[in-house]
């Protein structure tokens, strides 16, 4: 039976070398050099590669019993999504880097646009460190993703996943990433609302910021700042104060992640039906005014 290895670009593990995602029946692991050497011998055998490999300590998604290539690629993309949702980091898709399908002595390589560049030569660029806490969150995210697989095809969620992936591409600036994330987050949170935009966005996104009703104002203020940031990007409102606030800028991607996770959690916990994803904003409205519903939603979201 074949085993599939997909490199997760710019990811490191810390405190351990591997962990399982049982729901997806796969493993995320820092692969020893000798194993990689067997898969990529011609390249790995060249001079200095071992020291480079150790410096970059590449992490792979590993699927055993990989019979069907298409099915395996889908599992890997779900594992990647679990890492992105669990970390909110700008981790590009494994399809951009190296993937190997190993069966006995036969190795089939899939070389993405990064080729072996990120795998070997960029040990100083780390976008996501998976420590024990993050690993636990990634596992929970993978459970949620599997439970809510049918929701992943909803237009809003597809758009969000695509935006998270495109925002992680090399060549897209931090500002470009923020623009993509805020547009996608607005799509999930606002639905068909066309008036009282700032107030509605602040109220709804504010729910995603805190489980505590007594902190509602603080959550809404943060969401309002994010909407001001969105206006800077999409409506040219040159708000110097917001554009220089790194805390707000860095939380744009986090907001989109929270919106995706909350939508999936709402469906799997019966707070929203799977064919009503476009009404998620209305659920947030209710949660804004009902402390119990707010708590239920947050309890359903993996932390």
């Amino acid at each position, binding site marked *: 039976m074949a085993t599939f290895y997909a490199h997760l670009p710019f990811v490191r593990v810390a405190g351990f070398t591997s962990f399982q995602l049982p729901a997806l029946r796969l493993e995320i692991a820092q692969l020893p050099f000798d194993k990689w050497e067997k898969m990529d011998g*011609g*390249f790995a055998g*060249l*001079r*200095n*590669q071992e020291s480079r490999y150790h410096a970059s300590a590449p992490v792979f998604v590993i699927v055993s019993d990989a019979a069907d290539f298409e099915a395996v690629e889908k599992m890997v993309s779900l594992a990647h999504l679990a890492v992105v949702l669990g970390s909110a980091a700008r981790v590009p898709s494994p399809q*951009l880097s190296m993937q190997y399908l190993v069966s006995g002595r036969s190795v089939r390589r899939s070389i993405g*646009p*990064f*080729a*072996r*560049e*990120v795998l070997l*030569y*960029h040990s100083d660029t780390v976008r996501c460190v998976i420590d024990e806490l993050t690993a636990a969150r990634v596992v929970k995210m993978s459970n949620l993703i599997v439970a809510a697989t049918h929701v992943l095809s909803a*237009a*809003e969620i597809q*758009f969000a996943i695509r935006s998270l992936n*495109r925002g992680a*591409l*090399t*060549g*897209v*600036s931090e*500002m*470009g990433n923020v*623009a*993509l994330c805020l*547009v*996608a987050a*607005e*799509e999930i949170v606002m639905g068909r609302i066309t008036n009282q935009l700032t107030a509605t966005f602040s109220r709804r996104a504010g729910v995603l910021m805190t489980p505590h009703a007594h902190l509602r104002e603080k959550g809404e203020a943060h969401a309002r700042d994010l909407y001001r940031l969105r*206006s*800077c*990007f*999409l*409506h*040219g*409102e*040159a*708000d*110097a104060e917001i*554009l*220089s606030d790194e805390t707000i800028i860095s939380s744009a991607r986090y907001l989109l992640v929270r919106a995706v996770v909350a939508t999936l959690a709402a469906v799997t916990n019966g707070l929203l039906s799977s064919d009503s994803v476009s009404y998620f904003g209305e659920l947030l409205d209710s949660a804004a005014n009902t402390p119990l519903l707010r708590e239920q939603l947050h309890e359903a979201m993996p932390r």
Partner: protein
Amino acid sequence: MSDDTDLFSTFLLSELDQQVHWFFAPFMQITISEPAALGPMVLTRLDWMSWRFLERTELVEEYILPQTDQEAVVGIFTSASNPSRDDDWSEAEQICEAATIALRLAGDTNFVEPRLVGLYSKYGSTYARRPGHYRQDMLQQHLQPEHKLKPAIIVDAHQNYEAVQTLLTRGTQAELLSLELFRDSFGPYLGSGDRLLFLFASLEALFLPWRERVTGVTLERRAALAAALGGTSFPATLEDGAARKARNQLAHGEPDEIAFASLVAPMQEMMRGALRCWLKFQNTASQTHEPVREFNSRLALSVRNNEAAGEASDRLNA
């Protein structure tokens, strides 16, 4: 360095001054007929043997077949950056960024940016490199040039280099936003919808919210004037509300890749002109508290007064 361009026409690494930090920035997919100045750089062709010295890695054996007739265009320049001592590439990277944007604004949209491929340095016999994430892919695909960079474009980029460099180093985030999003629209592996999203964001970052009329003048008319002053035009396919409709589709997650694909190039061309106009305004107009708003106010006045291009340009850059 512009007086020394002949030095590199028959380029030999060993002829370079051994006591100076030299930098090499590859511009892939293009070629040039003769060396030319671009800001502090000299753009020249680098032959394959020299490239091997710079790259000096397994990549040479593994990826790039050693064909002696291959060459790439590189920008060669000196800098205060000292990568061999303290891994400091910052000034050299800034120079590359300004050169890249100046070339984009001059009208060449088809080259691969150096930052995606890498930056190389030489000091005496010490070589260093700062590889880009797509280095291997780009080196394999684009070492053989696909088109010739027109000399007039390099001249134009050279003339604008200082203004770009000044804006990059001194501009506030609000003043840089439009330029940055414009550049993002050229990134590799993006869909048409993504590119267009960046372009519309760039458009509104420069011309204020769509809904906002500046002294009664719409975004389209202000953008059209700025584009014209920058040597391009507002695309006819985006007139009569079509631009706003496409932007709303994008902002609400309704990507229509086929329809959007035809809008990317005209939008990039329009923004190129508009940003050239903005750059000139930034460079010549007196400093104001809110330069984006002031830029739009002056454009709006010219539109309202139906001013000729020369008059509008004078008002803008007074």
